[in-house]
Each structure stands twice: as C-alpha cells, then as structure tokens.
C-alpha cells in the first residue's frame, strides 16, 4: 500500500467527532409574553376607548344624542356647528374666539418655555457648581410637583394682593409657563448629556468665536431638544384647565379647555361638544406624531450609523447596549 492509498482510506473512516447531529431545539413558547401582550392591548383599549367613542358619537345625524345607540345617518353636521355660523345650534363664534385665544396663549407659552428651559440647562451645562444649583433643582422640581390648582389659587391671591385682576396673558400664561419649564429643562439636560462637546472644541480651535460656535455648531445640533421643549410648553398650555380656570376673567374670551370644561354647567350638552373635544384631541395627537416622526427620521439618517459602529466596537456610552437577541 502506498502512503496515498492509506491516506484515502483514513479519510473514508467516519470519525464520530465529525458527525454533526442536528437536533430540534425546543423553543419553549413564552406564554407570559403572550398573556402580557394581550393585557397590553386591553390596556390600550382602556386608554383609548373613551376618546374613540366620543369620536364616533360626534358623527351622528341631527337627532344625535350623547349616548349609544348611534343615531344615523352618519354625518358631519355636529362638526359643522364648530365653524358654520348659519346653523341653528352653532358655536362657531365661541370656538373661533377660544381657539384663537388658546393658540396665541400656547404659542407664547411654548416659546417662553423653550427659551427659559434652554437657558437654564445652559447654566447647568457650564458646571454651575454653586450651592445654588441644588436649590435651583429643588425649585424646578417644586414647579413640576405643585398641584396645578394651588398654583392657580396662589396666583389669584397674589394679584388680588397687588390690587390687580388676574388676566390670561399676565397671569395664566405665567402660571402655565412655570409648569413647562421643568419639562423643558429635563429634556434639554438629556440632550446635553448625549452631546459631544469635542465638536465645539474643534470649532474653537478652527478659530470660531463663542457666538459663531453657538450659532453654527451648538444650536443646529440641539434644535430637536429645543423644539421638543417648545412642544411641551405648547401642549401643556393648550390642554390646561386647572391652572387657567382661576386666572381668567370674564372680559376675555376663554381658552378652549375652559370653554369645554365649563360647558356642561353653562349650556346644553349636545354631540357638538364631542366634535369639539375630538377636534382638540386630534390637533394634539397630530402634533405629537408629526414631531415624533420627524425626530425618528432625523435619528435614522443622522444618528444610526454612528450608533451601530460604536455598538459594534463596544464603545457606545450612554446608549442602550443590552443584548436584544435573547
């Protein structure tokens, strides 16, 4: 036998360690996950059903009432009362006055909240290591936690004490803004913590002065956070009832939440209340989802590749690096 044939023979022998045994891996079905998933869906229903029912009932015919069964035909008659002044039970004037009032108030509040929150977060970013930063934090948390109703009461007493009448723009606006500031501040703090300061350093090294660096490097990188703050200020004010109710006076047209909130005690409740409620809810949801979609797109195009690379290198910091596979 030549060596070659011996080698061939040796190869032909089946070695046990070469045999690959494929066994079915028994994937245990995660019943807990299924159960919790069903519970989650039920929970979403619990959250959304009142709003859905309200939406459905707002599309009733002219004999529509406040409860089921749905009085056909399907129509937008009740929605029309929100803007058509010629209809019999129109609320168009109230709605447009209140809507405009709410819009101005919320836009202003949004801007103020974004500016104040941004500036406060900048102060903290500058390593504000006075004893005061603890105090400041405490004050901000107080602004977050104080019951809305007490803020309204306190402001009313303060303005009476000063001999003035509370008004929407001088009083209610201020009370709404203090609620938004902590949210804005915390959003901005989160943004700063993911922000790479070396970029600013680089801009400085390339000869940019502080103002240019801020305008051309810092601001473009954090504008989503600033816009998020604005949105917080806007929606919190857009929806506020408890704060504003004590701080408006009868001479100004009421913001929308006050109009809706005082409705049951001041005029007949008809399905157009549902239409109004559905409309304001739709405005808010539309805003939220638009912003989230924009933010997600931005994240995908601007952030994702870097994230992936950092994760692969195991260098990602502050990112969610936990194993998602198992």
């Amino acid at each position, binding site marked *: 036998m030549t060596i070659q044939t011996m080698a061939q023979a040796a190869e032909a022998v089946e070695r046990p360690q070469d045999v690959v045994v494929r066994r079915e891996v028994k994937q245990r079905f995660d019943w807990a996950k299924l159960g919790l998933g069903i519970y989650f869906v039920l929970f979403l229903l619990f959250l959304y059903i009142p*709003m859905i029912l309200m939406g459905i009932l707002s599309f009733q015919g002219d004999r529509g009432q406040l409860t089921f069964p749905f009085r056909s035909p399907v129509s937008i008659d009740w929605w029309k009362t929100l803007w058509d002044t010629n209809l019999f039970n129109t609320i168009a004037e109230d709605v447009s006055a209140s809507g405009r009032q709410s819009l101005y108030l919320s836009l202003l509040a949004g801007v103020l909240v974004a500016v104040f929150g941004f500036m406060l977060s900048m102060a903290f970013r500058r390593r504000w290591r006075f004893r005061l930063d603890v105090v400041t934090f405490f004050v901000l948390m107080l*602004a977050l936690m104080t019951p809305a109703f007490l803020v309204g009461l306190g402001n009313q007493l303060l303005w009476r004490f000063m001999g003035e009448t509370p008004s929407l723009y001088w009083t209610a606006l201020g009370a709404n803004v203090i609620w938004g500031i902590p949210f804005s501040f915390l959003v901005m703090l989160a943004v700063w913590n993911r922000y790479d300061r070396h970029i600013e350093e680089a801009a400085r090294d390339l000869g940019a002065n502080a103002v240019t660096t801020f305008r051309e490097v810092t601001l473009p990188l954090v504008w989503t956070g600033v816009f998020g703050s604005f949105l917080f200020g806007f929606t919190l004010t857009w929806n506020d009832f408890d704060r504003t109710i004590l701080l408006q006076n009868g001479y100004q047209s009421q913001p929308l939440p006050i109009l809706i909130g005082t409705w049951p005690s001041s005029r007949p409740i008809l399905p157009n209340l549902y239409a109004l409620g559905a409309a304001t809810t739709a405005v808010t949801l539309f805003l939220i989802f638009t912003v989230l979609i924009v933010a997600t797109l931005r994240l995908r195009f601007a952030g994702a590749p870097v994230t992936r690379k950092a994760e692969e290198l195991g260098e990602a910091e502050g990112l969610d690096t936990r194993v998602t596979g198992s």
Partner: protein
Amino acid sequence: MSSSSTPERIGDETALVALEEVEEVEALEQPRKGEAALGEAAAGAGGSGWVTAALAAPGLLWIGFYLIAPLVIIVLVSFWTFTDAGFERTWTLDNYSELFHDSTYWDNMLSTFLTSVIAVVACLVLGFPVAYFLALKVQSLRIQIALFIIALAPFWTSFLTRAIAWTFPLMGREGALNQILIKLQILSEPYQEFGFSTLSVRLAMIQLYILFMITPLFFSLAQVDRHAIEAARDLGGNWWRTFREVILPQTMPGIVIGSIFIFVLTMGDYGTVATVGGGNITSVGTLIYSKIGAVQYPQGAASAVLLVIVLMVGVWVITRFSNLREEL
C-alpha cells in the same frame, strides 16, 4: 467662580427623581466624564459665573414670581382676616381653628385621601404588567419605543376632554358600559353608580393618571440587569422568587417616583372631580374652589395650606419605601 469650587454631585434625590422621569436615567454619569476630559476649559471659556447667572436668572425669576411668591402668599393669607372684599392684613388664627372644627372639610380630606390611595395602588397593580411587558418582554428596541409612544400619547391630550369622553358616552345611566352589561344579562337594569359617582371619579382618575406610574416603572424596569435575572433563573429561582428578590428591589425607585406623582396629582385634582363627578362629588380641590368662588380667600388659603401639609407628609411616607439617594 465656578471653576474654583470643588466638583460635587449634581443634585440630591430630587434631581435624580426628575431625571428618571424624563427618559434619560443614564444621563448623570456621562457629562462628568466628558467634562473631566475637557477640563475646566469649556466651562470657564465664557468668562465668569456672571454668564451662568445671566443664563439662569430669567427662568428663576419667572418661577419666583409665578410659583414661589404665590405659594408664600397662600401661607400669608391663611393667617389674615376675612373681609367682604377678600382679606386684610390683620393676623389671626381663626381660619385654622374654624377649619379644624369643620367636619365637612375633614370628611372631604379623608375621602380625597382614600381616592388617592386607591388610585396609587390601582395604578401600580394595573400599570406594572404594562411596564413589565414593554421593558422586559418586547425585544426589538424600535418596537419597544413605538409601543411606549402609543401608550404615552394620551398624556399629551387634554385631561378634560378625556374626562368628558369618559363620563358621558361610557359611564352614564345610558352609557355604553351599562348597555353592554345589560346586553350580557349581567345587569337587569342600569347601574346608577357608574355615572357622576365616587366610583366613576376613581375609575376616571386611574385612567387619566396611570401613565405617570407607567413611565417611571418602564424606565426603572428597562434598567434591571438582564444577567441578574438569568443568573437567578439558572440558580433555580422560580418566577416569583426571581421577581421578588431580583426585579422588585431594582424597580423600587420607579415605584416610589410613580406613587409620588399619582398621590400628588390625585390629591390636588380639581378638573377631574368637577367634570366626572358632575357636581355631586366633592374633594378638597372642589371645596377650596367653592371657597374662592365665595370670596372666602383666607379660608381657602388655610385649606390649601393644610392640603399641602398632608401632601408633604404623604410624600415623605412614600419615600420611606426606598432610599432613592442610594439606589439611583
């Protein structure tokens, strides 16, 4: 100024509480590393502490005028004398002594407190599985975020509209709930207690505020060390023991923060009670509101001060369940 002081921790537990709330718990460690690497240069570059102070001043002054001053004046007015025009600056304790003998006030305080406790417990029990599912059972980060946002979206919509949506179509005598229960032959005639009752107020509060519990729970559950859970399983711990000895202790801060939120929000609520209760149900909030409506400012202020004291005691008791400073 800022560069000369020693670096100290950013804040106390309140600071941490807040961060937890805003979705970025890992936030605290990171800047310090970055800033330490850069040295004090970046911080000191703008000049002095004056720039910092100028940045912080507008927001703080605003809060001072619209929050701190009003809170101070509430306390002051509660010690002043009632007049037909409102109040005058004569010191008195009458407001408080009247309140202490006012059984209506204390009945309301008790029922509001009970409502709050029920809301806290119910939100915890109902919300925990939701947060648990989102944080530990959904594997894809993208789906996790998407589901969380869907669950959170109602937070941004009007409480009031949701309260109305809750009351009229669903809970009333002719509401959907009664109709369904009658169709299913569980009830033979409409159950009156669903509409404009304590029951409906409590249910509505759970529905309106539960997201304030789920959010901190979600973030603390998402931080639970997966390896610890696996290790506990490998060591033979069954589900319940793993839950009780591994997951629960690590979730305690979230539970405490959520409970504080729900407790404060429900104790200080006015809008929900007024709308869902339809005038039949009173709470401390509606009581204070009616005192203000009757221009009894000192009485209203004193009631508010007592409410704040109850709130503070409640929050203090809740924080005893977890040492936030250590565990976060």
